[in-house]
């Protein structure tokens, strides 16, 4: 029982990150009717931006030192036992300036990237077939992955957690449960961002414009809504949340180009939830997270990789438009 709890909570922690990534895919789809197969690679770029601004730049000679190291912190750190919660908090505090700088800079850089993609690759194809749109994003996969290899080396490196990372240990029904503090914090961050953005899209004028544009582009245009601006905004939103998700993932699992492949499993999750339903996608993300953790526990790591794909095939066969997606009405 305690074990189930352990893996369930692990799963929820991954699920929250899936949801945050899925948010980007759904937002772009809702506004532009484009399913972005390259979203994983946008996230990978976000993670590498974070790596650059939080690790590489601060480590270079010409860049100002971004560690916060007053005397009291150094003393306290020296006194705190290694791997103790206190040490974890203190080392986070020490790194806070570069974490903050890295994250903000990564969000900005990812947003710029998204604007470029939207302006030069997506906008010229407005109104084209779905196949053309899918293929453009497939082409983007390759371009982004190549650009990444041009700029950064291929090796896996570590980046700092966004939040302090004390180990949390307690017992449930007599069996021990371990949680990484930073992962718990990341879950909270991911869910908070997800919730805030969904609320914002429901309530704000920008959200209304986005929905209008997705319903009917030309009508929205004639109503005075700047459709290109809506599109650009959706892409920026996706890239910015993607950068945060990328930073979280990179801190958790180490940074590597394989972050890009992550996007495919999230795409499976999005289809499972329903392309245009935030709620459905959130539920699917959490379910897949937990399912993966349980599979990991019972069947081992190999099976985890295909869990979302098996799940999406089953869901599509039973409910072709996902758990909560709306069916497109065919007309003759």
């Amino acid at each position: 029982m305690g074990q189930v709890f352990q893996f369930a909570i692990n799963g929820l922690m991954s699920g929250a990150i899936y949801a945050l990534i899925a948010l980007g895919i759904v937002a772009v789809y809702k506004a532009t009717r484009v399913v972005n197969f390259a979203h994983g690679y946008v996230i990978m770029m976000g993670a590498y931006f974070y790596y650059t601004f939080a690790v590489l730049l601060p480590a270079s000679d010409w860049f100002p030192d971004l560690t916060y190291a007053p005397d009291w912190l150094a003393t306290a750190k020296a006194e705190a036992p290694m791997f103790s919660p206190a040490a974890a908090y203190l080392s986070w505090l020490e790194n806070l300036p570069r974490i903050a700088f890295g994250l903000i800079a990564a969000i900005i850089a990812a947003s710029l990237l998204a604007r470029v993609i939207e302006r030069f690759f997506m906008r010229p194809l407005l109104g084209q077939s779905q196949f053309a749109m899918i293929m453009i994003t497939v082409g983007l996969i390759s371009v982004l992955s190549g650009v990444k290899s041009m700029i950064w080396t291929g090796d896996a490196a570590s980046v700092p957690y966004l939040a302090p990372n004390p180990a949390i240990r307690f017992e449930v029904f007599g069996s021990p449960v371990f949680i990484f503090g930073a992962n718990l914090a990341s879950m909270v961050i991911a869910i908070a961002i997800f919730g805030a953005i969904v609320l914002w899209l429901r309530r704000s004028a920008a959200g209304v414009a986005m929905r209008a544009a997705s319903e009917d582009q030309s009508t929205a245009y004639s109503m005075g809504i700047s459709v290109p601006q809506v599109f650009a905004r959706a892409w920026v939103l996706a890239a910015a949340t993607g950068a945060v998700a990328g930073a979280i993932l990179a801190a958790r699992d180490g940074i590597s180009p394989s972050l890009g492949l992550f996007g495919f499993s999230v795409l499976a999750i999005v289809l499972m939830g329903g392309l245009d339903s935030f709620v459905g996608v959130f539920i699917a993300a959490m379910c897949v997270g937990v399912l993966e953790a349980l599979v990991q526990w019972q069947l081992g790591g190999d099976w985890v990789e295909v869990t979302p794909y098996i799940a999406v095939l089953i869901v599509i066969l039973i409910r072709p438009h996902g758990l909560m997606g709306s069916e497109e009405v065919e007309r003759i």
Partner: protein
Amino acid sequence: MKHTSLTRRGLLGSAAAGAATLAMPTVLRAQPSEYIIGASLPLTGPFATAGQLIAPALSLFESMVNGEGGIDGTNIRFVVEDSGYVPANALANYQRLLASEGSNLVAYYGDSTGFMQLVGPELKGDQARMMTSTSFATELANPETHPYQFMSGPTYADQFDILLQDIAAKGGKTVAFIHSNTEFGTDPIAHGQARAAELGIEVVLIESTKAQGADIPTHVTKLAQANPDYCILQGYVTGVWPQLIGGARQFGLQTKFMGTFWGMEKLIADRVTAEAGPFLEGYQGVMPYRYSYDMEDAPRLQQISEISKVALAGTPLENYMPTWGIQAFASLELLTIALRRAAEAGKDLSVADNVAEQVAGIQDVDLGGYYGTNISMENNKVGVGRVYEYSAETNLFTPTSDWLTA
């Protein structure tokens, strides 16, 4: 190997024979102006770090050998290409080089288990060259099936043997295997299970992870629940293993971690220590070679250190040659010995059989300090290694065992 040339010739007729002559213009043997040794390295892709660190070692080795008069008076030259760690790319590199260099190409340095497996069936007739590689795959240490491929260390299975012997000697009762889901990650697992059973060590967890971007918390959780005395990590290069160890340490697990050759690089350990703290303290693993700073009584390592200071000034390799470079040095050293012996015997070096014969004949030689002992070629491998331990304070791996033979 099948001998089918007769039927083939019968069917294709003389036209094909003529074509073969056209395609291979150097039928008349002449002493080539230089010997080419080809190499595919993962200069990009998931293991780019390794490839980029091996590349300079090859050029150092080239200058070292040519400084000594090359092979029987003929210089060698490396042609290095990128494989991106994709076996088919490396195969294409090899075949492209074979077509353009013909009999000047005398040997090849491969970059992965996958490539060595893929190229294996192609190595026959005039398509065959002697090969060594970065891989310690168990399958390759078999002269029957892979007659033209050898390795300069123990196989991954042997490395597991060495580690498990060490664990048994230290009184370890339980062990976990965590491995990447790549071909080299899974290579020794079955053998390790069998060997552990023989030694009376219980394998409490076998966990497969992604080679990159693995879901660390869940893997650590499983490890924590199994809570073994020892954990052997296999199939990682730059990533995953440091994060796994870091996670386990934060949980206060007492498990001792061990690695095999590819997880024993000081540069990576140092980088992790600098970034995340001293949690690799006490990390152990098996290495067939000496670290480059362990230069006492090792003329070759001293020589490498000297030329590195000049040739690689200003790079991270100025004062330290990574284990992956040392592996390349040791492998190529063995290859060179074989090539030289074949050349002295007046044999054609582009005929893989001639070189393979000499490789097999390498017995009880002193290689100049790459290993702590004299070594012999047996079943296309060198079966020695020893256990090292990392210290986060000195940033050095130091030996904790004697030279063990698997």
